């Protein structure tokens, strides 16, 4: 092949990134629902003609590795039957998707009568039908309980939008107007991306850009091989646990065997248990994406990551297992709950060869909503608990961050202010502070969890629905570091203490109840005896740890 001009390659790579940024920018400016315009739970990628990701906007990590599966499923469903101006849509986990709320729109970019690129945008819809509002149903036992399945369909045919299809989708969600607005925003965004790519094709020609695509993927691969070569080859095992399967069984293992070579790595999940009846199953796209996220976190340089990097990562699964579920298993918990545990299992396996790069366990996600009759404006409301997401795991050189939260999307969206919460809902926040002694002890200490105390001051009872993880299984310590603490949520009612479980639903909340949420911390790294004495003294002075823990665990003495 003729040599590629290094300048074109350098410029085109930046341009592709700029296009993905413009796509997500368009989306944020035009979308409807708060989940999207505030939490920005969406991601955009550009793929080459073979559905390999070339560039992605820095958004939700777990979307990146999953989207090629969706686009591949679209390609095979519409093989030979695609036209200029078509835009495809899908959300089905059993057609390359992750979970039903994540709806993907993808548009092939045509030039000289062939498809040269794809632009895809995945957005988490506020609702997708199913048993419960918002899509997280711990009670679901089949995929159909979880909402509307959309296998690959042509939402736009030769530039003509299918209004009938849009109506059908929207009427199957609880907020049809929001859904319509959000899907049309997605459409506007991918069309902008396609337009920009067509300009690039005009300018450089399809051959030159195809060479660039190859160059970008090769560079991603080179960078990942370079990274792998820094770690000691061998076979390593890792396991991490989900709290429970929602059907009475606790500590569900997700284990992997990592075979690390100089320029290839194989992650084998064959030993994982069979799929379960509740929503913690992970379809293959989500599992592969989680493994990619783990290796991204392990890398020294996150910038060079693309699908070229994942070419050297092979994932082996067993069909019908919890990490490669088949119909009709429900899967909504896969992105946040099982996704985190899959990432953890890989990180645990890499503790020995990549000890400079791994981090200890992070707090898991324990969400709940309170639904009541009257907010400050007299309307029914659903309040989402978005604060106090827990501590991050430590690594060999640094303490974990306090209040950073879950490993599948750390430091994602800002928590709402206490003032806004109180001004909008019949709720009063009485405390939001760091949780002393929570951080997993170690040479590097785990990040602290927090305490969030919320008093319900409405006039009539309200209802609480929980969905989460991290009450049974503590964030693990590594390399001699200790575990962090688990979440501990409870309701204080007239001196009585009612503990709150991760899948408790329809819990009645009475006026005056105080919901106290102690969030989980991060695990520690290294032997606490080796912690710098000045840091231990600082931690005591700052009340990150008590004097008692300083003496008993860190052996500060005097």
């Amino acid at each position, binding site marked *: 092949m003729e040599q590629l001009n290094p300048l074109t390659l350098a410029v085109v790579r930046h341009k592709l990134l700029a296009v993905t940024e413009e796509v997500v920018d368009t989306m944020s400016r035009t979308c409807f629902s708060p989940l999207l315009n505030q939490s920005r739970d969406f991601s955009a990628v550009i793929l080459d003609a073979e559905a390999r990701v070339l560039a992605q906007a820095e958004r939700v990590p777990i979307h990146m590795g999953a989207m090629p599966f969706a686009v591949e499923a679209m390609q095979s469903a519409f093989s030979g039957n695609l036209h200029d101006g078509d835009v495809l849509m899908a959300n089905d986990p059993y057609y390359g998707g992750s979970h039903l709320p994540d709806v993907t729109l993808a548009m092939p970019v045509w030039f000289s009568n062939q498809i040269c690129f794809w632009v895809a945008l995945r957005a988490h819809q506020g609702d997708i039908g199913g048993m419960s509002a918002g899509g997280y149903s711990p009670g679901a036992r089949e995929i159909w309980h979880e909402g509307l399945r959309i296998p690959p369909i042509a939402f736009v045919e030769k530039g003509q939008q299918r209004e009938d299809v849009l109506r059908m989708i929207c009427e199957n969600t609880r907020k049809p107007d929001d859904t319509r607005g959000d899907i049309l925003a997605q459409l506007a965004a991918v069309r902008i991306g396609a337009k920009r790519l067509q300009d690039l094709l005009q300018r450089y020609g399809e051959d030159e850009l195809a060479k660039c695509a190859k160059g970008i993927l090769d560079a991603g691969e080179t960078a990942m091989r370079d990274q792998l070569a820094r770690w000691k080859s061998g076979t390593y095992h890792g396991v991490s646990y989900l709290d429970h399967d929602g059907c009475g069984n606790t500590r569900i293992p997700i284990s992997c065997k990592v075979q690390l070579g100089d320029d290839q790595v194989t992650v084998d999940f064959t030993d994982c248990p069979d799929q379960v009846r509740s929503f913690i199953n992970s379809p293959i796209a989500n599992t592969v994406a989680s493994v990619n996220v783990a290796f991204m976190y392990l890398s020294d340089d996150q910038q060079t990551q693309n699908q070229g990097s994942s070419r050297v990562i092979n994932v082996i699964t067993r069909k019908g297992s919890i990490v490669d579920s088949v119909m009709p298993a429900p899967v909504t918990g896969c992105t946040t709950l099982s996704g985190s545990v899959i990432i953890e299992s890989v990180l645990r396996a890499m503790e020995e060869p990549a000890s400079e790069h791994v981090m200890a366990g992070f707090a898991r996600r324990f969400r709940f909503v309170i639904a009541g009759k009257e907010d400050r404006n007299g309307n029914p409301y659903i309040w989402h608990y978005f604060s106090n997401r827990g501590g991050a795991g430590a690594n060999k050189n640094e303490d974990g961050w306090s209040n950073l939260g879950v490993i599948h999307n750390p430091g994602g969206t800002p928590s709402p*202010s206490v003032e806004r919460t109180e001004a909008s809902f019949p709720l009063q926040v009485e405390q939001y502070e760091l949780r002393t002694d929570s951080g997993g002890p170690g040479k590097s200490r785990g990040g602290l969890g927090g305490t969030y105390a919320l008093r319900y001051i409405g006039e009539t009872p309200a209802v609480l629905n929980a969905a989460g993880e991290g009450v049974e299984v503590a964030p693990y310590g590594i390399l001699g570091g200790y575990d962090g603490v688990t979440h501990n949520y409870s309701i204080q009612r007239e001196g009585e203490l009612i503990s709150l479980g991760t899948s408790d639903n329809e819990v009645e909340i009475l006026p005056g109840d105080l919901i106290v949420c102690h969030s989980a911390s991060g695990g520690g790294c290294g032997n606490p005896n080796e912690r710098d004495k000045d840091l231990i003294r600082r931690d005591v002075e700052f009340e990150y740890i008590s004097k008692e823990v300083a003496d008993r665990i860190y052996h500060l003495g005097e």
Partner: protein
Amino acid sequence: MDIEHLRIGIDIGGTFTDLVSIDESGLICTAKTLSTPEDPSLGVMTGLELLAKKSTQSLSSLLKKTTLLIHGTTVATNLLVERKGAKLAMISTEGFRDILELREGTKANRYNLRTPFPQPLIPRPMRHTIKERVGWSGLIKESLNLAELETALKELRQHNVEGLVVCFLHSHRNPSHEIEVRKLVKELGWKVFVSLSHEVLSREGEYDRASTATVNAYVGPGLQGYLSKLERRLEKSGLNIPLLVMQSTGGVLPILEAGQLAGGSINSGPAGGAMAAGMFSAMSEIPLAVSYDMGGTSTDICLIKGSVPLERHTTEFEDVKIAVPTLDISALGAGGGSIAHLDRGGILDLGPSSAGADPGPACYGKGGLEPTLTDANLILGYISTETFLGGELSLSIEDAQNAIQERISKPLNLAPELAAIAINALASSRIAEGIRAATVRRGLDPRDFSLFAFGGASGLHAEAVINELSIPRAIIPREASVLSAIGFLSTDVRRDYHRSVGRPISDLDANELRSVFTELEAEAKNNLEAQGFDSENMKLVHSLDCRYARQVYTVNVRAYPSDFECDELNWLTAEFETTYKNLFQHIHDTEPGFIDTCNLTIFGTLPRLALPKHEIGDLDPGKAQKGERNIFISEWLSARVYWFEELSHGMRVQGPAVIDSPTTSVLISPDGVAEVDAYGSLHLYSNL
């Protein structure tokens, strides 16, 4: 030469302190001297001496004639960047000791999970909580526990605290508890810099207020100290007018307020450049402009609409949030000193790391081995070894070539000039993408803009940038090197006032809204009257931050005095919906809008700066030509070289050419053309 009523702008930058004076006739005199970071006022005095010498008079006679002196300083910025600010303590509501440390749960650089945890500017032991509670509506739910407060203050006083931050929940609704803290501090005779969260920012959101008040107290004492030192020096030398200090909003404040609201000057440096671009837009009647200022380490981009730079609410400064209005200037990590390198996958990239001033680019010969954009431009012949920085620094082509050879040419198997052109083109492309992002984010099309290019390195990329974005022209002001200082002279005194409302539009009657603004107006006008402004020289701008009840982000809705005469608030709903729709392409027509905050900005207008307009003369630039030089574009070719200072009004330069000045060079490709306008600025035209 008669220079009565002199106006002086002084801009202290990282390397140089720039001064510009302008007299009534519009005659400009400039001076440049090295900055003196240990005591920046020394550099200011040296610069003023230089300015006096240039106009053959004594410093005291210069200062006596001065009627306006506006000063922009990086003192506050440096204190924050270098983490050398005041020792602070904080008082907050019981149960909320960790507002700063919890950071709303966010992290910059989210994909790298091994970065060190950023300790907040106030360490935990210095953060005390007090029993008190104000409810969301402003009602006192629990009165302030004064005994507890007194104990806490006495305890903190033991620790040599220089700044005290007070942030109680809902103080934007009812500030009385915060005010009581200041009262008690006074009663105790404690002389400490006090920063009350509601005074710095009267808006909902405890983290925004706490963080902003903290930054304010962190840089406040240092800035106050510096400003009063400078004021004393200037008074001693004969200045008898109050000094004004440039703010991040593009306005100015007298030093007393500038010290109290110190956080407001953190981004004041780039604001000067944006204000200057605004001034040039007004002179040339340009409706939409984008300015880019390319320095050693970064490029600052700002949009200017109707000659007014656009603003934003909050600024993330590394890991610190500052939630007061500033000009919306976005920084891109690409400048003359940006290092070109191959990433781990072997693809060429530029920045964000920079060679800085020391060792600087390889061609400075100060031991830098990394190739930079400046090295590339030197190899290409775009910069002259003789005139760079006025010839004060001799550049080594050999060192530049070695660096590019070693790090780029050899691994990529490219001739050095091809590697250099790749680096140059990558820089242009990155700037173009940065400008595209800034315009597109606002829902605007870059093709409708004119480009202002200033700062040392920008002239070499201006033509490539406009070609890439199909922008019709780039304008390079002649005074590009002291443009920020000129920008200071095209400002007004400005203060921003906010009042939190937090109610749906449908809930409010017109009288209530009117009285909110009446109160704000009274406060604002009193303040400016005290500074000697009469009402003719005051300008008020009213606006409201609105949103839908469930949303977080607000849109800014402009209001006019006539609006407040209406008995209904239908106009507000209509304005809100129009503004919202323009930004987001939809509205929620079944939901009422929600008023978050009322804003009032007051301007005390300062006399306009008018640059002299000249007659257009001869087209032929021959007189300004200083020989020829070989440059590389796609091949080596000979380009005419011109002196910017000798190009007079109306001259037209056809490419290939290079226009040199002591501070910048402008590249004109074989297809490009440039003209000098009546103000002496260079207009470059796109060849598309």
